[in-house]
């Protein structure tokens, strides 16, 4: 199987702070990491390769500092990586990003003569749009499934894809090639291995692709090609906790009291939105 897996190099949002006055992200001193959900996708891809053979390549659109992140996934066992990097790609929204990625995917597919799967993480921790996989699939006109948990290769050139929604599990037959979004936290990413890391450093299997190579219309990429932008960031209003304690040895009474509280707050437990 020829598998391509998308990697986003993101600020570690667990450390990110906002400027309380401007609402802008404080990037200073915030280290970047590989989007954690993309590591699930890498694990997913490597597991497929372990079972069916083939190759896994990583693809990222990012500034050159992302090489560090690509070395991490190469350390996990990814065979090679492509870094699409050009100043004119900067400031891109999901549309402009997926446009570039789709062209990079096409180029790789042509180079290798074959590409079976393009795999993405479910979403990214810095923007959480979950757009990229769907948009890339649509630029490429390929079938796409999200919340994917597992894949089996079938005899007829199809794959059986298992997808879990909140209360159902569906198995789809998809023709190859296809685009998949892997359900986040569905996998435990394997650790980096020493010999893979040595190989990543010694053989430098990272190809840097600029717009001189992709030759995309500058109006379709980066800030210029982005019809959406973040106009303002607001804090979620803080919800004051109304801490109350009800003490009674009679559990039935306590339950009744609790149910009444829910009713007072207009919380509908039967609907089961929070399970």
């Amino acid at each position: 199987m020829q598998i391509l897996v998308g990697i986003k190099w993101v600020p570690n949002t667990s450390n990110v702070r906002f400027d309380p006055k401007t609402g802008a992200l404080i990037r200073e001193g915030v280290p970047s990491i590989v989007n954690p959900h993309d590591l699930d996708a890498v694990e997913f891809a490597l597991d497929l390769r372990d079972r069916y053979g083939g190759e896994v390549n990583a693809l990222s659109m990012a500034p050159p500092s992302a090489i560090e992140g690509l070395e991490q996934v190469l350390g996990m066992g990814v065979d090679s990586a492509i870094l699409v990097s050009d100043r004119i790609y900067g400031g891109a929204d999901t549309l402009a990003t997926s446009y570039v990625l789709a062209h990079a995917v096409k180029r790789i597919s042509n180079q290798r003569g074959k590409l079976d799967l393009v795999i993405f993480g479910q979403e990214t921790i810095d923007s959480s749009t979950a757009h990229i996989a769907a948009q890339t699939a649509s630029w490429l006109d390929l079938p796409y499934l999200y919340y994917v948990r597992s894949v089996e290769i079938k005899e007829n050139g199809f794959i059986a894809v298992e997808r879990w929604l909140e209360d159902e599990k569906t198995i789809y037959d998809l023709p190859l090639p296809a685009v998949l979004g892997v359900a986040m936290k569905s996998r435990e990413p394997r650790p980096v291995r020493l010999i893979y890391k040595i190989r990543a450093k010694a053989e430098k299997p990272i190809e840097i692709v600029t717009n001189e190579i992709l030759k995309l219309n500058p109006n379709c990429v980066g800030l210029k090609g982005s019809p959406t932008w973040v106009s303002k960031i607001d804090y979620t209003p803080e919800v004051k906790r109304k801490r109350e304690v009800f003490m009674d040895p009679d559990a039935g009474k306590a339950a009744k009291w609790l149910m009444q509280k829910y009713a007072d707050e207009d919380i509908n437990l039967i609907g089961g939105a929070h399970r």
Partner: protein
Amino acid sequence: MSTEHSTPNASPSTNRFDAIVVGAGPAGSSASFTLARKGFKVLMIDRGRRAGTKNMYGGRVYSEPLEAIFPSLRKDAPVHRWVKAERLSFVSDEGLTSIEYRGGESKSFTTYLPELVNWMRAKAEEAGALVATEVRVDRLVVEKEKVIGVQAGPDTVYADTVIDAEGVNRLLLEGAWQMNVPRQEDLAIGLKETIKLDAERVNQRFGLEDEGMAWILLGSVTRYIPGGAFVYTNRDSVSIGLVLFLSHAVKRTNGHISRLLEDFRLHPKLKHLWRDGELLEYSAKLVPEYWRGFMPRRLSGAGLLVVGDAAGVLLNNGMTIRGVDLAAYSGYLAAETFTKAHAEGDFTSEMLSAYGRRVEESFIGRELRKHNGLEYIRRNPHFFDQYPRLVNSGLGRIFNIGLESPTIWKALRGAQKDVGPDAWTAIKDMYKIGRTL
């Protein structure tokens, strides 16, 4: 379709090195840089995401040993401030007394250690070392009592010599040499908070003009637990922290030890110095405090050299704390020893034992031996309790005058009667300190 993806061929070019350095801290990076510059094939492994992320220290590096290893240090190292102000304070419930020295020349600087170590790592990489991060080495591979490589997960990589720069938690060494875990008495615990403060405020509040201050405080800042507190000014932040002798800290702290650091940060006489600052980071580290107890009986074996904290090359004499430069220089000496061994094609324990002698004969050995008498101070907790109080109580009597001022002798005598120690102990202590210093 094949059912198994095979492991890439661990070809001789990727699984065999002249030297493997475990740990990309100051000692490991210095060893790697020195070896790579000489053209050796070096692999440096670190378990952090990048070199330096596992490193922590108080805040000041003495530059001369580092300049001997990295000639371009003054030109391109990430120095925050060259230290030109030294302050020593005795703090107690009675007051705060400081001695301050300001000189023109500076031979030490403040910086963030991860930044400095990453710079050292970059130098090693530029020189040709291969650096593999995010990998934890699980054990030293020993064959016929010679270390022949390292194992990390399922992978084994081989070298003529392994340089162990794993740090104070020397699990690899304990495994290979069946060493005991270190004793509490030989260790200290360092705690630190980094507080962001713009450069102008740092300058104003500490009376600086872009130079650095190193400040040691003794007494109530550690709740009189043997050890001390420190403040270092960085470019646009201050590092504040405590170093506590572990055996005392274990006995005398209730609750979480970070409480002590919070008390220091909120100290009524000090807190204005970092007021409105933003807490960036909290960190803690074990310090190989007493080298005589902590240093392994030998610093090398067949195919193995031990450097940095793992080797216990750290000096704390109360006023001067040196770890990074000593560690780096031990890495440099290990690299020099390896070079000699390589020329002879001999990596036996006899050959590599030259490293231990080099350490002993270098300034590292001389410095460590010189300050050996400090053991006396360490073993007498009243140094950290009664003397800071004595100084402040005495000066309080001299400066807080009612109608009539006391003679200095009376003031000191009164203070001594108040807070101790008894006269005989004081005389004994003075004699010991005189001899030690």
